[in-house]
């Protein structure tokens, strides 16, 4: 079992003919993901890797192949346009890998998704990998293993680091999810935690946070109230110099939180241990699972 994907997940890739799009589409295919269509306007009629038909529009791809999920690799100026197109074509889940999407583009596209009940993961994220089910995005397949640990992270490569440690320690994953660290993202920490809490295939949870915002604090409060399974966390940026990433006004509306210390305090107050190093996550998780 997994969150957000299942055996009926049928994937199309927007920007399948680009450098990154084609590289990672191949990776998704190799992993066994049901990649049924690609979209690149002007390349309709071509075939990708001898098996995946390419269409000019997402609407065509959906009606011809029954795709219900899209992974987006188009360049930043066109990323929000690709999201609108996917949502309008009836796709249920969109994973936007693209880095560098203007924040106001995301501000505008979010209500469009909400009105249609479409879930977005990202942008600027590694996507989702549900071992044995589907790989949507760029997470290296070699580092995962099927299992029962759910992992959600605002980071990219830091996620891989932790997943790899889990796998090396024999702790397989139900789903590994990178939600991205941009100011405005589709699926939040909270959304992921709720989904994991409702997933019978997930029996423990690893949260990988970062300084900035208050997503970890909000999730901590929720977990304390509603989540029974063992949860372990890690926060990157304890030694980051202040003021380099966040304007003061952001701190104001999040009530002054956003530092690693704030987050650690909130998580520990909710009974969630915070690993001092990434390598401490596995032992902490084993300790909680044993309890």
């Amino acid at each position: 079992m997994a969150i957000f994907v299942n055996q009926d997940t049928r994937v199309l890739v927007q920007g399948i003919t680009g450098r990154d799009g084609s590289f990672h589409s191949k990776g998704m295919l190799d992993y066994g993901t049901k990649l049924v269509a690609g979209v690149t306007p002007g390349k309709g009629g071509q075939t990708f890797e001898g098996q995946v038909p390419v269409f000019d529009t997402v609407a065509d791809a959906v009606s011809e192949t029954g795709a219900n999920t899209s992974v987006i690799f188009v360049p930043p100026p066109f990323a929000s346009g690709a999201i609108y197109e996917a949502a309008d074509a009836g796709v249920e889940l969109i994973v936007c890998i693209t880095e560098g999407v203007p924040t106001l583009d995301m501000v505008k596209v979010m209500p469009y998704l909400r009105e249609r009940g479409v879930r977005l993961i990202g942008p600027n994220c590694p996507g989702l990998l549900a071992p044995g089910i589907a790989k949507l995005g760029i997470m290296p397949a070699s580092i995962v293993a099927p299992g029962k640990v759910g992992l959600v992270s605002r980071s990219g490569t830091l996620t891989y680091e932790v997943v790899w440690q889990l796998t090396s320690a024999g702790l397989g994953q139900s789903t590994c999810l990178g939600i991205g660290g941009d100011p405005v993202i589709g699926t939040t920490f909270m959304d992921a935690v709720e989904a994991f809490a409702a997933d019978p295939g997930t029996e423990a949870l690893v949260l990988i946070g970062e300084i900035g915002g208050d997503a970890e604090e909000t999730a901590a409060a929720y977990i304390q109230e509603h989540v029974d399974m063992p949860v372990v966390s890690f926060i990157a940026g304890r030694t980051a110099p202040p003021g380099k990433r966040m304007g003061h006004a952001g701190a104001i509306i999040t009530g002054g939180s956003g530092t690693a210390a704030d987050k650690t305090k909130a998580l520990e107050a909710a009974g969630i241990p915070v690993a001092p190093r990434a390598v401490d996550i596995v032992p902490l998780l084993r300790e909680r699972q044993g309890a």
Partner: protein
Amino acid sequence: MNIHEYQGRDVLRAHGLPVPPGQVAETAARAEAIARELGLPVMVKAQVLTGGRGKAGGVKFCASLEDVTTHAGNILGMDIKGHTVRKVLVTPAVDIAEEYYLGMLIDRRSGQVHVMASAEGGVEIEQVAADTPELIHHLDVDPRFGLLDHQALGLGLKLCPGEVKKARQIGAALQKLHAAFVDADASLAEINPFIFTPDGEGLAIDAKVNLDDNALFRHPEYPEMRDRLAEDPSERQAREADLSFVKLSGNVGCLVNGAGLAMATMDLVKHYGGEPANFLDIGGSSNPEKVVNALRIILDDSEVKAILFNIFGGITRCDDVAQGIIQAAEQIDIDVPIVVRLTGTNEEEARELLARTDLVAATTMDEAVQKAIELAGTAA
């Protein structure tokens, strides 16, 4: 990207906000000439990309041309929180009857443009937020409908209860500020203070505008606004090479892909008693040239005694990174030890490429960090 007050004023003025006249000077003589043209009294204001100018003596009231020459002379060249003042803004000093705070930013929680307005203007809004948060009025703007007339007027009336004329001016200023925010792809836009003269004329006295780096491609005019001199030279170099870089004071140069992993690497260097020389995220889709640039920037720092690569491949392919390190080694005279930890996409190809070099290989992050600290200590 942060821009100077005088540039922010231009952005706001272009959207119809009532901004007093003014010009920037790089010399005291030019400041005096501007003041002569504007008429006295004037304010001379340091143009630096940091707060707290007033407290540092960077903002002065000038009743005479002599004052202008003296104060501009003192302020130009002044150091404010590590920023050297290279320009001053000369603008008419206006009579202030009332001061307000008007600001907007992207709210991560709502995912919308968030308006803040307060009658406690002219002071640090952080202080107001800490002491009397109830004096700041908040509003999220629905991007589908924009900042509506009644919402803007409603905020105006909260700041000036019963004074509809003033409330309308504040409301209009908020709507124009919002239009400026959206058109400019800002991440922050503040007027502090927005004032009323004794005659009831509303004026935007200060302007703080930060722009969304991701949207600069839409604004070919904005990169012109970037104050290259105000940046740290290595940070500028990094930015121009499309690298995210922050200079720190340690001796372990860090080259990491991904901001989260880069921060975790810094945290780990500290954890094992070392000091990172920098934060450097070489980002996704990296190419060999990028690595060369990154190495050059790090090696420019003479404090760096060892270099630590921590690469976990996803979009970034390890073979690209290895290629980059090899090319860099061919092009640059590297005289410090390099510890490399490459894991992920194409990691075997990368290891093959690196096998013939004298780089120190490491398998885990902890091992790599500990080796780098050790080598930096040995070198020092």
